[in-house]
């Protein structure tokens, strides 16, 4: 049996073993759970070195010598100070010296905090701008956005320049949703006006509809992951690996 087939069979057994917990807690599940944890930890440790620390820290720090005509690079010796700063993070486990761990944490917090003003604007600024949408139609004939199929760009742009009735209705729904959901989060004072109470209630309903859509998308993903595992077991392992079918 080829190494590739053995690898596939072991992968399929591990998948079945991990799914077996759905029936009940059992030794097979426990075994594969521990195998998975051990493999993942070991793999991550190696990956952290090869894909991160070696390339980002070790190689630049030690530099290179001229070899086979490729010019060498001087080492950035100051990078060595990063190691003790990083290791200070582990003093969080020491009762006596855990203050040392605050130094790297403080550096990270400082870097992160300094970015926040720009980050907030980059994230929400364009969305605030996008929230200001036209709700009055500029074209009543046709009522719906015409098809741009097969049209040159100049005509496509001319079509897009109008606000059609269908676009206006969509934008009105958007604006009502935005305002009513925002009103739901006004917790600082009591909303006594009937209109505001109805608006917040509408906001709550619309939030629930939104959560339902998010849940549906999440379910799609979970099912897809299961289907992928089934494809791995039946098609890649059994059909192609063991039976050698294409």
């Amino acid at each position, binding site marked *: 049996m080829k190494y590739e087939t053995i690898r596939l069979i072991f992968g399929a057994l591990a998948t079945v073993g991990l799914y077996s917990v759905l029936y009940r807690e059992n030794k097979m599940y426990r075994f594969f759970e521990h195998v998975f944890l051990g493999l993942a930890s070991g793999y*991550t440790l190696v*990956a952290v070195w090869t894909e991160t620390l070696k390339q980002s820290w070790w190689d630049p720090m030690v530099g290179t010598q001229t070899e086979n005509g490729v010019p060498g690079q001087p080492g950035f010796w100051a990078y060595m100070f990063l190691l003790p700063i990083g290791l200070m993070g582990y003093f969080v486990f020491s009762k006596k010296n855990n203050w040392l761990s605050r130094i790297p944490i403080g550096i990270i917090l400082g870097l992160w905090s300094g970015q926040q003003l720009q980050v907030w604007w*980059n994230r929400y600024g364009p969305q605030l701008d996008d929230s200001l949408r036209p709700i009055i139609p500029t074209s009543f004939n046709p009522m719906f956005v015409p098809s741009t199929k097969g049209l040159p760009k100049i005509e496509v742009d001319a079509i897009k320049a109008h606000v059609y009735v269908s676009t206006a209705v969509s934008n009105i729904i958007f604006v009502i949703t935005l305002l009513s959901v925002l009103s739901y989060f006004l917790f600082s004072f009591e909303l006594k006006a009937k209109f505001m109470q109805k608006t917040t209630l509408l906001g709550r309903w619309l939030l629930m509809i939104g959560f339902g*859509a998010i849940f549906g998308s999440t379910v799609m993903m979970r099912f*897809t992951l299961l289907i992928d595992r089934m494809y791995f077991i039946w098609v890649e392992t059994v059909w192609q690996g063991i039976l050698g079918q294409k």
Partner: protein
Amino acid sequence: MSTKPRSEMSLGEKMQSVPKPILYLVLVLLTSLPLFKELNVPNKPNEASEDFYATVMAVPEGSTILIQSDWTGSTRGESGGEFESLMRILMRRKIKFAVYAAGDPQAPQVVKDSISRVNDERKLSGQPGYKQWDDWISLGNLPNAEAANQAIANNVQTAFPGRKAIPSTGGSPQDVFDSPVLKGHTKLSDFPLLVVVTASNTATIAIERYAGKVKMAQMVTGVMGPETLNYYPKQVVGLVVGLKGVYDIETLMEGGINTADPHTIKDDNGKFQGKSVEGFPGELNKGKATRYYPTLHFAFALLIIAVLIGNIGMFLAKKEAGK
């Protein structure tokens, strides 16, 4: 749920307490059997997927794009399909790419395996393989997505100091910025496009740090989709969400966009205008999504039926209790 023995349960109670192993068994059957049969589900790609496809197809041939890939084996079902379909388009259009990770140290190896699979596909169909150094470069992983993205936004070259790779002709490892892929690229604006393929919050972190510096498109999982949709189309010019998104891309790769009358939508230079984009008819466009998407419908059907059975059971049980 009733704790009575099953033999003493009423019909309504039985309907509410279908044994879990039976449900799981049916689910396994429904997610396995359709995989062996080629089924076609009619599809109308959504606008976000069309914009993603049009954006990637508008990248000039021979140029280099940047890819941030933050997915691993745990989301292979969705992210794997997304990444492979992106690879197929880039390789067919001879677009070079540099790929890095900012979310998981395992991601670079997963990406290399995925590229290798698509490369094997190309070789089997008689097309030239995509070579590391000449056509693509792996920049590895940068820890802490916030800091990594900020460093890349400031200067791409200094964000990856000392990164080396072996040239396709062999010899000693050389600086990746001397490769045909990255030569002359120092700023984000030197890249015509950045694509983020992710299964996590790094999609948002990239938007926060790269805003206005590079045109960005994203491929995210179904879980991240609703959150990321807020940024389309202002901050993210194209968006592929989950399995439906990949199915859209595979559909577009076969048929293109607005291909009904392609002669009228080219300008004087023969280039397509607006959103009208060609596909790759006749090539291997069907990937993971074409296999998985029909199967997904069987799983959804089971979910809907199970909800209906449970609710009808509850209704019957209440009615029987009221007698």
